[in-house]
């Protein structure tokens, strides 16, 4: 019996040591658990100028108010604040000119008095749309947070709207500075943290919303397989683009929504139902929503949404780029047609086979070639003869790494890689010029910072807009013209070079393209 007990104790010794180690680690982890309250996600913004009169330019979020009873009920109501809040964060719309510091929020209890501590000047963390505010001074532990004011000290700029992110499904109400109804249901995107600090991750979008952390097509309608009533069909497109992808030099992110008529064999592109509903170069980051409607005759249609990285005046798609996306949805307006049904079924078969093509799917597809297994002629032939996109990409990468980087042509590859790269380097050098004044010894220094000068010049160029419509900027007007001009000049030069339409010298006596008279 004793031997059995000792044996079991020996078995548990390593486990006990592990538990002891974990028990030493646990208190430190608890001490660093920083977030006390997380207001979830952002699903919109509010206009601080909404219902706010001149001189009362502030807005407030009553986090747990029911919208009916007293605005200041007293007691200790609101968001629980068991630990001392030392930091809090709110969402700032990146299009707003209002800085984190200018928004100057304040936290208040349900009796209308501020919570303990002094709210410091705000600053952006992680990204430009996440503002953080430190709280110093006496502890506010146990003082629940009932209200957050923004712009309470100096007021926000009424010309700048939509600066605060909201969570419309959260409890509470948003109240303007005049405190006059109607109140907006929901809360400002809000996060409180203890002395461990707040995370720098931005407030996420709500579930099912367009995730703006990467560029992609979020969705479009009509949905696949639906039958809609004509003749007017409503179309929507949602996509997200990151600022980094927009800033990428020498190429653009182009998003298109194209309705393809499937009721005409081969020449469907000539049909009036073949419409490009949306074709835009992304210039604004974040989630973009587009909606339109168009009349369509009865029949079958395929709606194709594409996001592509393009270069050379957006005429050529860069193959293999990670943001390239092409999604199709097929739908029917009213009554389908015979050719339309055939086209849709054909697309479904091919797309269904190729859509599952991942790096290993060819193997899966080829397994359908086994006559003793799940034999399928289409899958078998597709797997045998149609390479996966990932396999082609791997082959291209293999060729680049295995062949193109070899000496001596590897130097050209390296040069092309550098010249064609999209990385940026800041112009941080400051140049100082010594200038003589009255005498040679009486000098002064003038410093030039090229980075600042370029930024200032760029801001000047960007600030030029139409006096009648501020959305019509110098860039929006002249960029397409400049692109077209440069593109045509380049094309002309290439065609000129290929066709040899220059003055030729193939005949004797031909000088300067003018034939000399024979004597």
């Amino acid at each position, binding site marked *: 019996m004793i031997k059995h007990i000792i044996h079991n104790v020996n078995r548990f010794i390593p486990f006990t040591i592990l538990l002891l180690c974990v028990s030493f680690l646990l208190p430190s982890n608890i001490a660093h658990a920083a977030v006390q309250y997380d207001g979830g996600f952002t699903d919109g913004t509010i206009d601080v100028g909404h219902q706010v009169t001149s001189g009362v330019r502030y807005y407030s979020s009553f986090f747990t108010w029911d919208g009916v009873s007293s605005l200041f009920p007293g007691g200790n109501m609101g968001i629980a604040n068991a630990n001392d809040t030392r930091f809090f964060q709110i969402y700032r719309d990146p299009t707003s000119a209002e800085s984190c510091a200018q928004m100057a929020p304040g936290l208040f209890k349900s009796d209308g008095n501020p919570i303990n501590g002094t709210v410091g000047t705000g600053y952006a963390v992680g990204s430009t749309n996440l503002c953080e505010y430190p709280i110093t001074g006496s502890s506010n532990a146990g003082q629940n947070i009932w209200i957050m004011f923004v712009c309470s000290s100096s007021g926000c700029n009424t010309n700048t709207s939509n600066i605060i992110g909201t969570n419309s499904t959260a409890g509470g109400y948003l109240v303007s500075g005049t405190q006059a109804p109607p109140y907006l249901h929901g809360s400002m995107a809000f996060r409180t943290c203890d002395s461990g600090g707040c995370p720098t991750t931005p407030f996420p979008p709500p579930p099912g919303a367009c995730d703006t952390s990467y560029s992609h097509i979020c969705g479009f309608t009509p949905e696949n397989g639906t039958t809609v009533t004509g003749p007017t069909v409503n179309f929507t497109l949602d996509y997200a683009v990151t600022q980094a992808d927009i*800033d990428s*030099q*020498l190429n653009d992110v182009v998003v298109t929504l194209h309705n393809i008529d499937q009721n005409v064999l081969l020449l469907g592109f000539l049909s009036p139902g073949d419409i490009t509903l949306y074709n835009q170069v992304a210039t604004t980051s974040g989630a973009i929503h587009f909606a339109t409607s168009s009349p369509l005759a009865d029949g079958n249609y395929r709606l194709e949404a594409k996001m592509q990285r393009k*270069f*050379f*005046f957006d005429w050529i798609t860069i193959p293999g780029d990670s943001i390239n996306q092409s999604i199709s949805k097929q739908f029917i307006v009213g009554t389908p047609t015979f050719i339309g049904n055939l086209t849709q079924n054909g697309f479904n078969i091919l797309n269904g086979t190729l859509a599952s093509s991942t790096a290993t799917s*060819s*193997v899966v597809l*080829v397994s359908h070639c086994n006559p003793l297994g799940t034999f399928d002629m289409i899958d078998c032939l597709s*797997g*045998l*003869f*149609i*390479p*996966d996109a990932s*396999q*082609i990409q*791997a*082959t291209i990468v*293999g*060729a680049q790494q*295995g*062949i193109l*980087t*070899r*000496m001596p042509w*590897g*130097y050209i*590859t*390296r*040069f092309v890689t*550098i*010249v*064609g*790269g*999209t*990385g*940026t*380097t*800041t*112009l941080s050098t400051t140049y100082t010029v010594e200038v003589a004044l009255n005498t040679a010894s009486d000098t002064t220094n003038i410093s030039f910072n090229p*980075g600042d000068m*370029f*930024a200032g010049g*760029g801001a000047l*160029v960007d600030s030029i807009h139409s006096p009648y419509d501020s959305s019509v900027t110098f*860039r929006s007007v*002249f*960029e397409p013209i400049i*692109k077209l001009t*440069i*593109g045509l*000049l*380049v094309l002309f*030069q290439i065609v000129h*070079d*290929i*066709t*040899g339409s220059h003055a*030729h010298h193939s005949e004797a006596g031909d000088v300067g393209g003018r034939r000399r008279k024979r004597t």
Partner: protein
Amino acid sequence: MIVAFLFNLIVLVIGAIFSVLPAVTTLPPINGFDIDGALVQGMGQVHTFFITFWPLGIMFQGFLFLMGYYSLKIGVRFLIGHRAPGHS
């Protein structure tokens, strides 16, 4: 799978032939001057400049495309000689 295999085989054979040559990761320094680093930094600064002054970026894009065409033309002329288009 068959097509992918053939592509891979071609790349593999050519890659194996040229594997005796050293791979280039950076441009060689000339008289101790780091050409590669200078080019990377220079192009980075050029891109920063083009973000601000976008019309020049568009012109540079056109210039690069034209240079790409001439490079391709040199390659084609090297391979098929006088039968290349535009060759006089």
